[in-house]
């Protein structure tokens, strides 16, 4: 009964939290645009649709066309899909690996913890992007999916560290001891006794990983190590800069992709703060 009451309380505060609602609304708008956008245009992202070259937005080309006459809107909505895909898969993978390592290290302790902690610290210090770019530079063909894998496998350390610390403080509680006494397996204790107690924290972590993966992907794409067979928002910005969109003042080429990334990541951060306030009564505004 009290569990039910607590849930209702969260929902009550969630629906009254402006930061959460605004963030969620922005994400949903872009998600819908990414899902239905490609059906609203007949132009393929890379097709040379407009023979006039770079033209400002018009009724025919909603976001204008690039230097080569490619439809910016068509690139943009396909790029949005790539962005959400990288966020969900890359960020999701980062969270899952971080959870596995953090739970194991925190719950086991001892030598296992020492080793995993050293590993975490090492990967934490290495600038992720440097590793990503050296791997990506040697891959001839890259897809969005490989990009997700790269990002997921390098983004986990801070998550692992934070979850390890939380697990550490939870594993000496009475209810965990009780579970141990009753002969429960470690893995079951972690997932039925410890994880539920930090559900809110895991959700916040995933949101931050989602945003981080999007920014990392944009950076990789912009340096020229993005997917070789697809379009993304970062690639749009790279092409725009490479083909002189700045000098020619074709702002419609580079404003939409950056604006979308900023809005999506900003909305995620806003949701994060909002959810934090929902879960943590101390932070709620009086």
């Amino acid at each position, binding site marked *: 009964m009290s569990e039910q009451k607590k849930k209702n309380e969260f929902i009550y505060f969630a629906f009254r939290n402006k930061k959460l609602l605004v963030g969620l609304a922005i994400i949903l708008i872009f998600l819908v645009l990414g899902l239905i956008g490609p059906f609203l245009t007949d132009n393929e992202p890379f097709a040379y649709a407009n023979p006039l070259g770079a033209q400002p937005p018009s009724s025919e080309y909603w976001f204008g066309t690039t230097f080569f006459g490619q439809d910016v809107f068509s690139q943009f909505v396909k790029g949005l899909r790539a962005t959400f895909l990288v966020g969900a898969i890359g960020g999701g993978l980062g969270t899952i690996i971080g959870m596995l390592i953090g739970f194991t290290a925190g719950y086991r302790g001892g030598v296992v913890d020492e080793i995993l902690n050293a590993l975490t610290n090492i990967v934490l210090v290495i600038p992720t992007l440097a590793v990503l770019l050296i*791997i990506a530079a040697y891959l001839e063909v890259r897809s969005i999916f490989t990009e997700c894998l790269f990002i997921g496998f390098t983004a986990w350390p801070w998550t692992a560290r934070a979850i390890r610390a939380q697990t550490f403080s939870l594993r000496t509680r009475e209810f965990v001891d009780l579970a141990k006494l009753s002969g429960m397996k470690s893995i079951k204790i972690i997932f039925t006794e410890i994880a539920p107690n930090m559900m809110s924290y895991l959700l916040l972590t995933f949101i931050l990983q989602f945003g981080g993966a999007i920014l990392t992907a944009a950076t990789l794409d912009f340096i020229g190590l993005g997917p070789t067979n697809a379009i993304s928002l970062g690639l749009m910005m790279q092409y725009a800069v490479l083909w002189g969109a700045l000098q020619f003042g074709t702002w419609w080429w580079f404003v939409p992709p950056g604006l979308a990334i900023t809005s999506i*990541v*900003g909305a995620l951060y806003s949701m994060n703060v909002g959810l934090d306030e929902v879960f943590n009564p101390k932070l709620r505004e009086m």
Partner: protein
Amino acid sequence: MKRYFGRKILVYLLTFFLAVTIDWMIPRFMPGDPIRNMLTRVSVSSNPIAIQKMYDYYSHLFGLDLPLWQQYFNFWKSLFQGDLGISTYIFPTPVAKVLLRAIPYDGFLLVPSILLSWYAGNKFGAFAARSKWLDNTVSPLGYILTATPYMWLGILLAWFFGIVLGIFPIAGAYSYSMSPNLSWRFIGSVLHHWFLPFASLFLVGFGGWAIGMRNMIIYELEADYSHYLGALGAPKKLIRKYAFNNAVLPQITGLALQLGVIVAGALVTEVVFSYPGIGYLLLAAIQNQDYFLIQGCFLFIIIGVLLANFTIDIVYILVDPRTRRGMTGETA
């Protein structure tokens, strides 16, 4: 404290070892064949015998025909001799020399932007916390800034100040019509070219630190010791000072954690402004498939980040008295 340092140094050494190993391993174990790629790209000849000859020649030149353990050993040896290979993009300059030329620009861009944005962001975040009006205006701005991809902010600044208003140059580290010398005119030109890349790095960092500090201060002001001080009748200013001192420690650790992201940001900012640091070199190296240069950039970035991390560790010890007294608890 000795133990704390010992552990830190051990982690850094291990990291360096691992990084060098990755640097060595990736070209050798990735799918694809760098030498074959190089030959097909230059397409010197269609004669298979000639190609095989060249292939053998280059394999021997790069030492790829030796047993693996020997290659690995040689890699370390040449690394300690400062030999990172020859750049094929700026042939025949040694990679180490190309990189050393670029380093000053990176330092000039990164050090001021990191330190100033950290300082200003923390001060401002502490100032904005628990002040309703400031919090409502500044916090959203901070979130937007920290969510902005570095290159996009760079592109916008370059476009607005460089093209629309035309008051700042958008390419190079100094005017193309000058050669480096120690005159005021040249220094002025350097600063003029430096300002926009600096500003875009500064702004993104500023937003992040301001928000981080604002959130930390709110946690600290709700902590028991703050309430206790308040109950004792301590002035608000004193309580805030204590809160700031406590909140600044995680921000120092945060700086160490953020270094990788900041460096990545600097790389793309340099690309936007054609600023001749490592980032700009890296793009050229990738576009020209200059693998030695890519590997060299990787090593330099790793070494730079490790050194910066170490500096932050020392600063942390100087700032936090508890680490000095050995009350470290969670250290490495």
